């Protein structure tokens, strides 16, 4: 029984890290800009498709047709030659193998531009408009983004292989000095967990230890005062939106080996990330992270057969149930400030 619970807990942490990472970006935007961004899932999806695009370029092939030979279905035999390996040799092969981590380097500037463009182009005009309209315009943008991706990449998911060295499962039990082969967990999921930890840590450190971060935090607490101090808070907020887009984007990139991305992947995460943010407390970064882990762990445990035997179907609704209870008992969430968006 111990191993079962331990594994489920581990799985919950892993899920929680993913949830926390998605909710973090959403909270950054809400906390700094006061904008409810329903397009956040779309940013996650765009990040994932950056990885797809990078891999498409890395695996470009030259196709030569050999008309003398026919495949069983009667088409001329195609001989494919990978280009990148041809140019870069072994390094090319390594690049293809590590295409997912590699695409982070390319995703960061792209998502930064996307985020800044979005904020300057559209979101900026919605700061003063009601939250409902913010929800609606970002929801509309999310639909547009996913449909554009669909018309380019098609409706089907595009699998992104993980690096060969990071496939399979790691024997965590053995590392911890327990019996071998009892507690094993996929290596890539552990990588994702660490990655989420690093990104979350980096965002916190950035806000805590840089002057930029201090100004932004002050702005989160009291926007008007900071504006009066003569600091151009607007530009900093634009950068924050870009940062949130980057966080969402890299989260999407690293998730691709776990779940082949399709155009719809953002919407699937959207509702979930909102629930996480609300449970954590709107606008509270530590709250979002804590709620992400809490919900991840609860969901993992709710999926245990022993639990489901007592509460049938609990695994399907646990997240919403927790959200409802929290909202009714403690409307500002776990760590939120009182009165945020209650009016």
């Amino acid at each position: 029984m111990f191993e079962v619970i331990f594994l489920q807990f581990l799985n919950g942490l892993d899920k929680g890290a993913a949830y926390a990472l998605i909710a973090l970006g959403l909270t950054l935007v809400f906390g700094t800009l006061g904008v409810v961004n329903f397009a956040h899932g779309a940013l996650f999806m765009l990040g994932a498709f950056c990885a797809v695009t990078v891999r498409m370029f890395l695996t470009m092939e030259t196709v030569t047709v050999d008309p003398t030979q026919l495949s069983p279905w009667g088409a001329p035999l195609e001989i494919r030659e990978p280009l990148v390996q041809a140019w870069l040799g072994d390094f090319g092969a390594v690049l293809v193998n590590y295409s997912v981590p590699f695409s982070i380097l390319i995703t960061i500037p792209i998502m930064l531009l996307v985020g800044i463009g979005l904020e300057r182009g559209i979101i900026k005009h919605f700061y003063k408009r009601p939250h409902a309209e913010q929800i609606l315009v970002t929801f509309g943008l999310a639909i547009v983004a996913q449909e554009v991706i669909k018309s380019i990449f098609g409706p089907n998911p595009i699998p992104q292989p993980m690096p060969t060295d990071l496939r399979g499962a790691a024997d965590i039990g053995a590392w911890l000095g327990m019996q071998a082969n009892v507690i094993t967990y996929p290596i890539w999921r552990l990588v994702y967990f660490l990655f989420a930890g690093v990104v979350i840590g980096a965002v916190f450190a950035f806000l805590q230890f840089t002057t930029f971060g201090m100004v932004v935090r002050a702005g989160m607490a009291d926007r008007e005062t900071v504006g009066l101090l003569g600091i151009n808070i607007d530009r900093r907020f634009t950068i924050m939106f870009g940062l949130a887009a980057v966080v969402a984007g890299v989260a999407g990139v690293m998730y691709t080996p776990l779940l082949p991305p399709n155009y719809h992947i953002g919407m699937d995460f959207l509702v979930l990330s909102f629930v996480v943010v609300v449970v954590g407390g709107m606008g509270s970064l530590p709250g979002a992270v804590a709620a992400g882990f809490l919900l991840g762990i609860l969901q993992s445990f709710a999926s245990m057969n022993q639990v489901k035997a007592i509460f049938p179907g609990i695994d399907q609704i646990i997240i919403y149930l927790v959200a409802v209870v929290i909202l009714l008992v403690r409307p500002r969430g776990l760590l939120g400030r009182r009165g945020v968006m209650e009016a």
Partner: protein
Amino acid sequence: MNPALMSRNDLFLLLGFTLVVLAMPIWLAPFGAGYPDLLQRFMIYGIFAVGFNILFGLTGYLSFGHAAFFGVGSYTAVWSLKLLTLDAIPALFFAVIISGLFALVIGFLCLRRSGIYFSILTLAFAQMSYNLAYSVLTPITNGETGLQLTLSDPRVIDAAVGHTFVGQPIPTLLGTPIGGYAGFYFCAGFLIITFFIAQRIAGSPFGMMLKAIKSNQTRMQFTGFNTRPYALSAFVISGMYAGLAGALLAVTDPLAGAERMQWTASGEVVLMTILGGVGTLVGPVIGAWIIKYFENILSALNDNILARFFDFLPDGVDTFFVKVIGKFVGDGWHLTLGLVFVIIVIFLPGGIMEGVRRVAAMFDRSGGKTSTRTQAAE
């Protein structure tokens, strides 16, 4: 009509609306939409949107979970058709009652919060309903397949009366099958009645209270009103509208699927209301019609049809047009919808009705009325 019952303007609006609705099979035929199934859907989603507007448009509460009531209405109606009788009237009656009760419970809890918290609460309840309908409640909902009528259903009332039939069971109204155009006129009758009721609500003191809640809830409290029962009444009424719409969908097409409870279905009615014009009477209905038209007609345009349409253009140019436009129709129709929606929210927050008003104002500068831009509640 007694002027105390209805003002002249309202009466003209109702008559005009009735005329437009009843004549739909004629004036929609040239647009390829004059077939009964789509016409029925126009009516049904019109009812759904009119009801949703009572909550969102008048009272200012943005619910992201109204599809749950729609689904409950559908399931109740199908169960009534299965267990009691194939007649539509009991099915609709029970559906409205049960969805109203369901709305009462959920509304009571959700209305303890406002703003986005209210939205998330309704969303959470609807998603729970959806997920349960999909899994554990399968004995009631028949899960993913959806609840259908079968030959072996008990139908106790029909059996007691000795009423039998051959073939696939079909819902009836006093013995006449409700399908095709009969189904359309049946639904149209309900749309007109519910539109009339919504008109009355909007024009009543009660309706004014709802608008006042949307405008300034604090003032309402200090003016001596307990706003909770007002908002709850609006919630229950709109839940009953949704239940009626769901039941009508089940009666004209006897299948109740869990998908119609999903949050995207709730989002759809929000889109309809916004697109048409929040807080207006006709707007949500028009929004519903436009979205359903897009969904059914735009989505069915494939490259084949486009190619024939652009046949008159020189070669190369026509393929270019087919390629470009093909991205916006067929299975890309959501893209068109999304773009239209974004443009509406940015430039016309009052929806199509605000556009109509602006155009009308351009022609008629003499009117002293200021544009009452309706705003979504915060």
